[in-house]
């Protein structure tokens, strides 16, 4: 006997309630504490690296940065252009760069500066001496896609800490060549929207008016 749509809907509701209870941790995301005073900020890129042309790396970084605006509609990183800067400090310039050094087991590191509750600077370092980076979604071997690592690091730059949810982009560790991190988990979206509530959609018209 095929279940009717009506009875099935009721069971789906019950199943979702049960599932929500079993999966627990509706809030696995962690907020670092501070946030940007506005829901967007500009960043510069020093794309010189050991693995690919700078233009390719730059495009991959843009894609990672855009993750938060496109998938969560909550915060936008604006690419402000290239930079030749190679050091990171609190100088008001948000910088993404590759460093031909090793930093233990870290694939990339985000440094964010804040005064009180306001983030004032954020810099991201990709540890290019320790790991090989790739761009796109195929061809990776024993390394990491920039798009995925960038999505995670830009998450730190906007004020998110490490999530306890293993399926979240903001989970702290990674497997090589994983290209799923660039897709935000519902936990990531909840986290960024808790910091930067998306703007309300335009009001829906309640009636029609004929304009001649």
């Amino acid at each position, binding site marked *: 006997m095929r279940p009717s749509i009506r009875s099935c809907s009721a069971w789906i509701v019950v199943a979702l309630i049960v599932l929500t209870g079993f999966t627990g941790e509706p809030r696995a995301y962690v907020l670092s504490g501070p946030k940007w005073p506005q829901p967007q900020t500009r960043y510069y890129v020093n794309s010189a690296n050991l693995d690919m042309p700078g233009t390719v790396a730059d495009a991959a970084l843009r894609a990672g940065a855009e993750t938060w605006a496109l998938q969560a509609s909550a915060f936008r990183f604006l690419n402000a252009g290239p930079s030749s800067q*190679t050091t*990171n400090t609190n100088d008001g310039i948000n910088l993404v760069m590759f460093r031909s050094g090793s930093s*233990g087991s*870290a694939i990339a590191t985000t440094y964010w500066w804040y005064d009180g509750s306001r983030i004032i600077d954020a810099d991201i370092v990709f540890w290019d001496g320790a790991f090989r980076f790739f761009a796109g979604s195929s061809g990776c071997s024993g390394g990491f896609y920039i798009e995925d690592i960038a999505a995670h690091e830009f998450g730190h730059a906007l004020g998110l800490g490490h999530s306890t949810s293993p399926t979240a982009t903001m989970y*702290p560790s990674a497997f090589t060549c994983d290209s*799923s991190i660039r*897709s935000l988990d519902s936990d990531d979206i909840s986290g960024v929207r808790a910091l930067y509530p998306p703007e309300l959609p335009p009001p829906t018209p309640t009636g029609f008016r004929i304009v001649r």
Partner: protein
Amino acid sequence: MARQILTCLLLVLGPLAVVGRALGADQVPVPIGERARGAERVVAGRVSSVTAEWQTNDYGDRLIVSVVRVNVTETMKGESSPTVDVEVEGGTIGTLTLGVSDQLTFTPGERALFFVRRNRRGRFVPHLRGQGTIKLDAAGRVPGTSLTLDEIRREVTGRAR
């Protein structure tokens, strides 16, 4: 009835299973034994003080670094001493704070394990950055896991040397 429930549950659970994903990103997990092998010292202890200062690292980055003084309760590897100062990137000076994504922050009174090596200036820093520090709760467990200090000790002493 049971069949009806099963059909409906499959409708709900099927798509959820398909969208299941692997892990997220910013460091590669390193087993405890491997962390110990590369460390000059492995100590457990309680943080007695945290002092932040400005430092310029080997890359020319001017950063806030916290000097974490640890009262050592156990040395699992390396030379033993009553205290160890470990320099961890990040900290607060005045109202300005530097957060670092792969480093833990410490406050006095916390228990932790430190896998340390010396940097070029001869000061102790966490070996493998963030994976060189593990916090412990009052019961000697790693918070959020079932891992105990005893298990870590076995891993360290069994494989470090």
